[in-house]
């Protein structure tokens, strides 16, 4: 039976655990709300990972891990564009630019980084293509999944806690009324500043997430930090006003006030 489903029912961590225990070989294809990813496994070990259209060629990965400089990266891309990663890796080792462990460490670091980013995906679909592996010209790596699974489980707990704290993203945010607090004196991260710039009772948290290109986990994490710091509070979109007529048996405002005053007098007399 095909291994396919929804990330809401089956998390990335659970998928990794399954692949690890069953020692599966194949490619996990994940389609998130705004991006997609391929993660390949050989006998239950991580072999390759790609996220969206991100350049994950060997020169790009080596450049990201600072093993080669920007001019070297550009030169290799120009002159060795027709070479496979395996051929290029051998060339760099033989030419004495890098050794084998430089290359393998960079690849492992990059692939693990991709899987870590996938832990933040809580919406989307997945399917596992058994025995489908990336092209043979890529350099094979074998990364044990146990540590990643533990890390993912920790993140899952964080996600559950964040969901408890912020049950719905359809609510809005407003700044707390704290006259003594000056936002300029508070150290915020770039992500926090991006969210803060959209804080307004008219914007739901979901709209802020879309505007800042954050997924459900990322936006909840940032908002949780702002809530903990006492900078913002959660309000109904559009601001809270007393408009619900069903509260009272009458729509006449004077009668409503009279009713509340009668309640006050009665409770005083109990």
């Amino acid at each position, binding site marked *: 039976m095909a291994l396919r489903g929804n990330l809401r029912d089956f998390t990335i961590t659970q998928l990794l655990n399954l692949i690890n225990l069953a020692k599966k070989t194949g490619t996990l294809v994940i389609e998130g709300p705004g991006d997609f990813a391929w993660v390949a496994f050989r006998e239950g070990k991580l072999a390759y990972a790609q996220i969206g259209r991100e350049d994950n060629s060997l020169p790009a990965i080596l450049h990201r891990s600072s093993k080669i400089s920007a001019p070297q990266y550009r030169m290799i891309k120009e002159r060795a564009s027709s070479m496979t990663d395996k051929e290029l890796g051998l060339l760099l080792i033989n030419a004495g630019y890098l050794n084998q462990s430089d290359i393998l460490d960079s690849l492992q670091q990059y692939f693990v980084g991709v899987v870590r980013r996938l832990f933040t995906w809580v919406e989307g679909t997945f399917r596992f293509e058994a025995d489908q592996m990336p092209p043979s010209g890529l350099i094979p790596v074998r990364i044990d999944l146990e540590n990643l699974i533990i890390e993912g489980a920790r993140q899952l707990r964080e996600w559950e806690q964040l969901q408890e704290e912020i*049950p719905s993203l359809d609510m809005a945010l407003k700044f707390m009324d704290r006259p003594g607090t000056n936002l300029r004196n508070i150290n915020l991260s770039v992500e926090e500043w991006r969210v803060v710039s959209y804080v307004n009772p008219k914007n739901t948290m979901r709209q802020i997430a879309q505007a800042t290109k954050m997924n459900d986990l990322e936006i909840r994490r940032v908002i949780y930090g702002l809530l903990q710091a006492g900078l913002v509070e*959660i309000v109904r979109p559009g601001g809270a006003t*007393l*408009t619900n007529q069903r*509260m009272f*048996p009458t729509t006449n405002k004077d009668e409503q006030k009279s009713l509340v*005053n009668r309640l006050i007098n009665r409770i005083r007399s*109990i």
Partner: protein
Amino acid sequence: MQTVKIVVTGPFNAGKTEFIRSVSEIDVVSTERKISAEAEKVKSTTTVAMDFGRITVDDDLVLYLFGTPGQKRFDFMWEILSEGMLGFVVLVDSSRPETFREARTILETFRAYAPTPYVVAANKQDKDDAWDLDDMRVALRLDSKVKFLPVVATDKEKVKKVLLELLYSILAEMEAGGA
């Protein structure tokens, strides 16, 4: 006969049933059951659907007090109970800081259901291990404008004070709304 309602909510074992019992003119219609979960056995029974109390104002008006079930697995009842409420009281057990986070979540959930006025009441303030109100306000992340009152749910006068403060807030908000 006109009827209005106020909802009393809060985490498990916050004292909601006692709170309503202190001011209700009828025996509280309670749906208490013996507790099955080991982790929740800090008391022998708990409310599973709702508590129901009544205060007759005059020939023409009755106030109903609804207490929500405290256990999380009954939270589907909350939205039903919150429909058409005048306002709500969030009751927090001052001696059980492990429930403060849940109280905050309940508060935000109810605010999402209806933008009605509310007050937060720190119950069991007579206990030796009760937290100070100032510390609780910080822990519960309550804005300084939110009415936060000490209460002992078995003390009628203190319960009256909480309900009155809620009604004053309702009146103030009606007046601020240009009514």
